[in-house]
């Protein structure tokens, strides 16, 4: 299993998904060698063997920038100096060399590579061992770049690995469609396996009202709290969201919008909210972790996922777990596995404003959305994900053998 991060050293959903999937696979009887680009103990993980490909500390800037594909400037790794470990490409080169050595010692039955970060290593391991390669796509370069085109070098890396893969797993139909359309991969090579949510990972937890006392007070005054927890990048469609928020305020004046997270667009969003006259209703919490992060979910009446392109969107399931009503852009994969949600096109600010106002004006709508999605999200289990993966492994294995 070729990954790039695991909790707690993760900067996003990739690490969370890899962790739970591997754990569920181990329960199903799989023996996993999991390769990370950095060195960390991960003492809590006893269900698989973890290999650190470099001596980088887990907090390394390069590693935490794992979503910053835009800074990659070199396709040919022969031109990259692997010694310095101060660029993404250098770390990747180092990672590949480590994998080459590893597969000489441990012959894999299947190579499972996650996203562009590890795809080249996967292709290399396949070439050396003849083992089938499964490429698992959590996000493509198209998703990461929002409404822009993205980095052509990263496209190239993805394209080559997708062509070499024996089987491709996409985390949603949306992602599958991108793989087929943008990368020209035949539809039958791509299987959709939606992510899940591990409910047990949330317990035990008690909501601490002190964290957001001010919002609690507003709620008692009849305010509706709308929250987003996300990175502030173009992929997340936040400028559209802020415009919709301003429109919704024309119809209902007791809204509070919490934007939890951080990113390059923060200043732009702050000034946009001000220019639209809703600066006093939009709250920027900065990056939140742990209890504060959970408490945002708990305080939220409504959770919005406004992404321009979201392969899955695990945070929506976390919000469902914490009893929020969900409004999810039609461009977010998680919407494919939920019925009790409101959907809109990420650019359709009128529609989002209408939905926000509707929830504010109808107590029954808010209640039913919360209850409905809370009843259904728990049906999604990592066990199912693992079973689908294992069935896929055995099929590619037979395919190769024959």
């Amino acid at each position, binding site marked *: 299993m070729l990954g790039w991060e695991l909790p707690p050293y993760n900067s996003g959903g990739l690490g969370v998904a890899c962790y739970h999937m591997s754990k569920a696979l181990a329960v199903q009887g799989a023996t996993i060698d999991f390769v990370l680009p950095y060195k960390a103990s991960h003492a809590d993980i006893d269900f698989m063997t973890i290999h650190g490909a470099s001596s980088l500390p887990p907090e390394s800037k390069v590693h935490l920038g794992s979503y910053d594909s835009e800074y990659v400037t070199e396709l040919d790794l022969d031109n990259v100096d692997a010694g310095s470990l101060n660029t993404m490409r250098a770390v990747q080169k180092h990672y590949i060399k480590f994998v080459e050595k590893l597969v000489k010692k441990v012959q894999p039955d299947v190579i499972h590579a996650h996203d562009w970060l590890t795809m080249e290593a996967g292709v290399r391991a396949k070439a050396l061992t003849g083992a089938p390669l499964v490429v698992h796509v959590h996000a493509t370069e198209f998703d990461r770049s929002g409404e822009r085109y993205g980095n052509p070098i990263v496209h190239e890396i993805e394209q080559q690995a997708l062509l070499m893969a024996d089987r491709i797993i996409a985390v949603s139909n949306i992602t599958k469609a991108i793989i087929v359309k943008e990368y020209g991969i035949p539809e039958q090579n791509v299987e959709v396996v939606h992510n899940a949510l591990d409910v047990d990972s949330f317990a035990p937890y008690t909501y601490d009202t002190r964290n957001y006392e001010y919002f609690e007070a507003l709620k008692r005054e009849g305010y509706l709290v709308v929250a987003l927890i996300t990175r502030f990048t173009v992929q997340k469609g936040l400028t559209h969201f802020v415009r919709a928020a301003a429109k919704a305020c024309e119809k209902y004046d007791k809204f509070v919008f919490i934007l939890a997270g951080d990113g390059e667009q923060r200043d732009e969003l702050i000034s946009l909210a001000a220019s639209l006259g809703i600066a006093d209703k939009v709250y920027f919490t900065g990056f939140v972790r742990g209890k504060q992060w959970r408490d945002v979910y708990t305080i939220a009446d409504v959770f919005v996922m406004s992404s321009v392109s979201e392969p899955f969107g695990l945070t929506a399931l976390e919000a469902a777990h914490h009893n929020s009503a969900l409004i999810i852009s039609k461009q977010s994969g998680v919407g494919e596995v939920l019925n009790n949600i409101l959907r809109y096109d990420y650019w359709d600010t009128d529609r989002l*404003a209408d939905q926000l106002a*509707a929830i504010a004006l109808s*107590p*029954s*709508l808010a209640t039913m*959305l919360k209850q409905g999605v809370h009843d259904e999200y728990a049906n999604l289990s990592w066990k199912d994900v693992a079973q689908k993966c294992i069935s896929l492994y055995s099929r590619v294995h037979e395919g190769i053998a024959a």
Partner: protein
Amino acid sequence: MTKGIALYLHVHQPYRVRPYSVFDIGNTHDYFGVKDDSKLNNEKMFYKVAEKSYWPMVSLLQSLLERNPGFKLSLSISGDFIDQAEEWASDLLEAFKRLVATGRVEIVGETYYHSLAFFYNRQEFEAQVALHRKRIQEVFDYTPTAFRNTELAYNDDLAKWADHTGYHAVLAEGWDKVLDWRSPNYVYKPTGTENIKLLTKNYKLSDDIAFRFSDQAWNEWPLSTGKYVDWLESADGQLVNLFMDFETFGEHQWAETGIFSFIENLVDTWSNRENHVFYTVTGAAAELEASGELSMPDTVTWADSERDLSAWNGNAMQKEALKYLYDLQNDVLRSFDDDLIRDWRLLQSSDHFYYMATKWLRDGDVHTYFSPYDSPYDSFISYMNAIRDVRLRVMAHNKGLLSTQNHSEAE
């Protein structure tokens, strides 16, 4: 012994609420007119169903009536349908009139707006029944003598009302839990009534046609006329009540399934057998003796496995919508604004509430719930915004009323 069939078909098209947003409130009172390719375009939907179902079925019924002098049937035609047909397909309405002109097609009374007003406001219910009666008289020169409530929603109170109003027959679902050991194939006297008779739907034999006909997973598929007639022959009792949507023919069951030739063969076969008859529902009530008394204190409908009203008022959104809708009654009627009253009544159609049902989200049983909306939540949002606009119009009238009063007081 005589074998009888009472075939009753329900004809209805709702005015679906268009995507009506919070920003439309106060700006436009057009809740029903959308001109796109969606399933919410009422005009397009009407043409589609007319082509697939109404036209071929009306033509077939006309020729069956012409060649089989003993063939009779009953129809209920909602006011919403008549209004749509008049606007978009007046020749189709003429074709329905020709059916009725044969004298062997009964029209059953109901509420004009396909509403559940009986359970929310008796006065409004009676007003809608009267409106429907008047419309049927104008269009078809016919006065209904039998009654069916929307969604076949029935209880003892409805029977008493219909009896008191002078109807000869009333229709209900023949639900096992209510019938107990009894058969739906007999005519009954509803508890607490004097003259009226109750006909109960044989849902097994009706649903074999309406729901299961094209179901390839059904162990009786494909259903031949011969097999079905055998089932009818072996049924006990005085008659078999086959009650279903008119749109079963061509819309719910497409022409390709063979549904039209099935019903054609069925009518021809039955007509040619000795001592085999067709009844209209009033005809059955007149010719057949009540075999006993039947009581349904709790409301029974023809929907879902529950056969109650929960498909329309079971969840919190439906309850909220219904409450706001009927709370407006006095103000709306007092406005004497015909457009406002009509819009409010169009918003009473049971279809709106059915689209808000969330039961299937749990069951995953999407196929039993026809909805033109992406989700029940979407239908609720548009509906509630329309209700808010109605409320705004009511407020405008109230203010107007207030200022005239003040004015006259000043004088």
